[in-house]
């Protein structure tokens, strides 16, 4: 069904950066940032900046010690907790790291004052390659973490050595997944407003996680949760970037408390690119033990993540290498698996979650390995995959992932049909004779969904979750829903209202969903990790069932039948089999709230308040599907053009196909960007080389082709309603399909693809050998 969110809504109300506080006199923040990748800070002189008319405050590290550092850590023995200073004091570790903050009457004046702050730096040797950072003698980033390793871990399942000894062949693949950026079109933004009378702070925050932001931000600010209200209204995209705790946001909040004025900070595009969060860079070495007939035996994988200068909070840069490693088996039948990961500090921007986390990089490396095996064995990759694909039944993967049933082979066949596999090899050979390079790539995947306690722990993050939703039938029978989830483009107001309308048998229009305001909703940790359909459906179904039970009991009491004989349909409570005996929802509501006043009777034995708040902490659930792409590589220019792209998705029971397709297409477009265009390079001194959108290339209408989208519905065997998750699959599978297609187009020339993005210059270099 169509979304209720209207184009007029963003135009009239809109994201954080457009909000004006009720109180006047908003001040604006800007930051002095390090131009160096690694340097000692020997002097910071802010006197000239403080003296500039219009400047209300300039803070350096010593002024804001009360905030403490932002600590990136996990409750694991093998993790080295990492403290990031709110402002750099004596050392900067990446280009863009904030050194001082200016608060002034306008952003223009604040930026003038930033230029008046004098900072003396003594450059230090930098390290920008994650493997070099782990090597002996590398420049060290953190005195308390020798060796630059945030975490080193490994797991072995089954007899890996035995399988590799028995194999006819060991296939190897090294793959470097490039550094990319979630880069929502609205950057980070905050307006902090301190009410000294009430001693309450309100933050309008461009966030995916208003509840989590409140929990994580209140203590550094010296506040309790009840003193902090986080409002995340219409947020201009998130994709994982807006989960983190940000020094700049804590500083804006602190400045508002100290100055007694609203303080606003809206990052500019350079700050977004250089100094928010990067993602997904992992260097991977994979091995496959395989028999001559193509039967897979075992896989080994080593994953070196590049976490940047600091571990972000709360999830840290481990979201890439660890999630990649745990999903090493993918959809393949294997006897044994071993993975090891390392997570290196480098003089680059910190990394954090970006849609599909390490599942993107891991998928690209694993599926490139499978294609490599196909070439070495002389078996078509399509056939090799199908031969080793697991069955559709629920099962536990070699790394312990509890797959809840899927369409692992059928989704591949359907994607191949949609992309035009029939006759492709003949077409490929024919055009090759004309000097044209055509290639096909296939990328079957599982997508972990419903990120909560079970999935987080499976992926190596020992957290528990609480995510609630509430359902209240108001006196007039309309329904108010509140949730701790948060939509920033997904369409929760539509789909969650659908769920409630279906469950209570009321009109869609009678349901209102409130989210994104910690004072108006129940608690939750927000939206990310393909969780909202699963968690939202589960929590709402449970809450609706409790409210429905009360409605039925009130109706039964008034109609003098048993509650079991009542059903809720078409906005009424109806006696089953006697459609003329019914009570309208409006009358039921008034009866519950006011009883005799409207001539109704309240049952004596129930709490008449028609409300319920329930949480849902789902078990592991995994969507699956397959992306297939046909590309053409221009041998002269190295430009890759996508000829066809098909995406088959099985996210279990679909609540709203339009919204699911929006997620698939959008995530696939991001995957295409990562595969072909988007890159965040540094030079060897740690200078950042992609500070504008002319350097970091978002794909446009000319790069993203029409996609053939299709669905298979294999209901989850374990979640409420059989719902899985759909937010990330496109960014799991599309990059890999394209990488494999390019490799397929040029493999006969002896060219081996080993990294993303496959920019024209890089492809040209491959073709030249």
């Amino acid at each position: 069904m169509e979304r209720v969110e209207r184009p007029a809504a963003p135009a009239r109300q809109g994201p954080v950066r457009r909000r004006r506080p009720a109180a006047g006199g908003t001040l604006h923040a800007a930051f002095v940032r390090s131009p160096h990748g690694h340097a000692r800070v020997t002097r910071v002189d802010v006197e000239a900046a403080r003296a500039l008319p219009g400047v209300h405050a300039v803070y350096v590290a010593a002024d804001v010690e009360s905030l403490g550092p932002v600590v990136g850590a996990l409750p694991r023995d093998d993790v080295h907790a990492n403290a990031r200073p709110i402002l750099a004091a004596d050392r900067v570790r990446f280009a863009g790291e904030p050194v001082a903050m200016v608060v002034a009457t306008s952003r223009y004046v604040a930026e003038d004052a930033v230029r008046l702050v004098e900072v003396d730096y003594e450059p230090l040797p930098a390290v920008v390659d994650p493997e070099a950072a782990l090597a002996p003698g590398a420049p060290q980033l953190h005195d308390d973490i020798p060796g630059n390793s945030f975490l080193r871990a490994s797991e072995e399942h089954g007899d890996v050595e035995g399988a590799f000894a028995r194999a006819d062949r060991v296939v190897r693949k090294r793959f470097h997944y490039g550094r990319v950026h979630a880069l929502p079109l609205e950057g980070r933004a905050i307006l902090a407003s301190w009410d000294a009378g009430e001693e309450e702070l309100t933050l309008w925050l461009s966030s995916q996680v208003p509840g989590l932001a409140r929990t994580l931000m209140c203590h550094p600010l010296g506040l309790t949760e009840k003193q902090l209200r986080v409002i995340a209204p219409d947020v201009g995209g998130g994709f994982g970037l807006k989960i983190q705790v940000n020094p700049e946001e804590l500083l804006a909040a602190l400045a508002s408390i100290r100055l007694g004025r609203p303080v606003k900070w809206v990052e500019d595009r350079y700050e977004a690119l250089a100094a928010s969060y990067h993602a997904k860079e992992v260097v991977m070495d994979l091995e496959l033990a395989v028999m001559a007939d193509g039967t897979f035996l075992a896989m080994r994988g080593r994953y070196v993540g590049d976490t940047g200068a600091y571990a972000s909070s709360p999830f840290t840069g481990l979201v890439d290498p660890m999630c990649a490693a745990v999903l090493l088996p993918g959809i393949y039948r294997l006897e044994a698996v071993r993975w090891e990961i390392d997570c290196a500090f480098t003089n680059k921007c910190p990394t954090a979650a970006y849609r599909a986390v390490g599942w993107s990089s891991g998928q690209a490396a694993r599926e490139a390995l499978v294609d490599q095996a196909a070439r070495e064995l002389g078996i078509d990759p399509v056939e090799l995959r199908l031969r080793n694909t697991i069955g559709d039944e629920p099962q536990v993967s070699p790394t312990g992932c509890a797959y809840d049933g899927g369409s692992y082979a059928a989704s591949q066949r359907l994607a191949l049909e949609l992309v035009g596999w029939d006759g492709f090899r003949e077409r490929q050979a024919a055009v090759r004779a004309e000097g044209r390079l055509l290639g096909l790539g296939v990328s079957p995947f599982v997508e972990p969904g419903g990120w909560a306690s079970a999935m987080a722990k499976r992926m190596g993050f020992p957290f528990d979750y609480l995510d609630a939703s509430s359902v209240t039938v108001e006196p007039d029978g309309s329904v108010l829903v509140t949730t701790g989830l948060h939509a920033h483009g997904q369409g929760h107001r539509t789909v969650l209202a659908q769920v409630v309308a279906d469950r209570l048998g009321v009109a869609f229009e009678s349901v209102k969903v409130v989210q994104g305001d910690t004072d108006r909703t129940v608690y939750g940790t927000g939206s990310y990790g393909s969780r909202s359909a699963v968690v939202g459906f589960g929590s709402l179904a449970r809450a609706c069932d409790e409210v429905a039970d009360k409605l039925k009991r009130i109706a039964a009491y008034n109609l003098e039948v048993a509650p079991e004989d009542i059903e809720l349909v078409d906005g009424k409570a109806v006696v089953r089999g006697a459609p003329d005996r019914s009570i309208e929802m409006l009358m039921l509501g008034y009866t519950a709230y006011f009883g005799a006043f409207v001539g109704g009777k309240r049952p004596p034995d129930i709490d008449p308040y028609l409300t319920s708040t329930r949480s849902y902490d789902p078990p592991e659930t995994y969507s699956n599907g397959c992306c297939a792409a046909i590309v053409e590589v221009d041998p002269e220019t190295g430009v890759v053009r996508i000829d066809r792209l098909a995406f088959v998705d099985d996210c279990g029971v679909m609540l709203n196909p339009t919204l699911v397709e929006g997620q698939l297409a959008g995530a696939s477009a991001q995957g295409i960007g990562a595969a072909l265009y988007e890159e965040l390079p540094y030079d060897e001194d740690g200078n950042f080389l992609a500070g504008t959108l002319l350097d970091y290339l978002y794909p446009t209408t000319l790069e993203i082709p029409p996609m053939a989208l299709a669905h298979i519905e294999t209901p989850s065997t374990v979640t409420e309603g059989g719902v899985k998750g759909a937010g990330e699959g496109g960014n799991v599978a599309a990059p890999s399909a394209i990488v494999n297609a390019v490799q397929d187009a040029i493999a006969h020339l002896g060219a081996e693809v080993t990294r993303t993005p496959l920019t024209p210059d890089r492809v040209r270099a491959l073709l030249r050998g």
Partner: protein
Amino acid sequence: MSGRILDGETVVRLVVNGEERRAIAEPRLLLSDFLRHELGLTGTHVGCEQGVCGACTVRVDGRPVRSCLLFAVQADGCRVETVEGLAPGEELHPLQRAFQRHHALQCGYCTSGFLLASLDLLEREPDPDEATIRAHLAGNVCRCTGYQTIVAAVVAAAAELRGEARA
């Protein structure tokens, strides 16, 4: 090191969506900031301030421009069209309606720019093919949708504006 504030203020007069508006601007104030913060027209969004993303697209004297690349004083005396002018009342413009029906916006941040760019295309070329639409909209970026639904919405709106069908 230069920290001098550019002195001086100018009264900037514009005709915005058919209405005369005036406000005071420093010479260095961007048109995008002037529209949003001085005139309160916050429908124009600012995505990059580098002239790349197209989110801040408005029309000045009938031509689509990046409002983040113009100073407000440069637009003095001009006619400016912003997204607020598309649907002054409760009724959405056919393009907006088509964007809603075709799920052509998710977070909505890029939408104002796409609407203005699409309007500009359809006024000059009422029956564009898909390749023309894609070429015309290549100066605007969307991080959410993958574009196909945006192209479909423009096709549908074009048909409605030609009087052929409901978008």
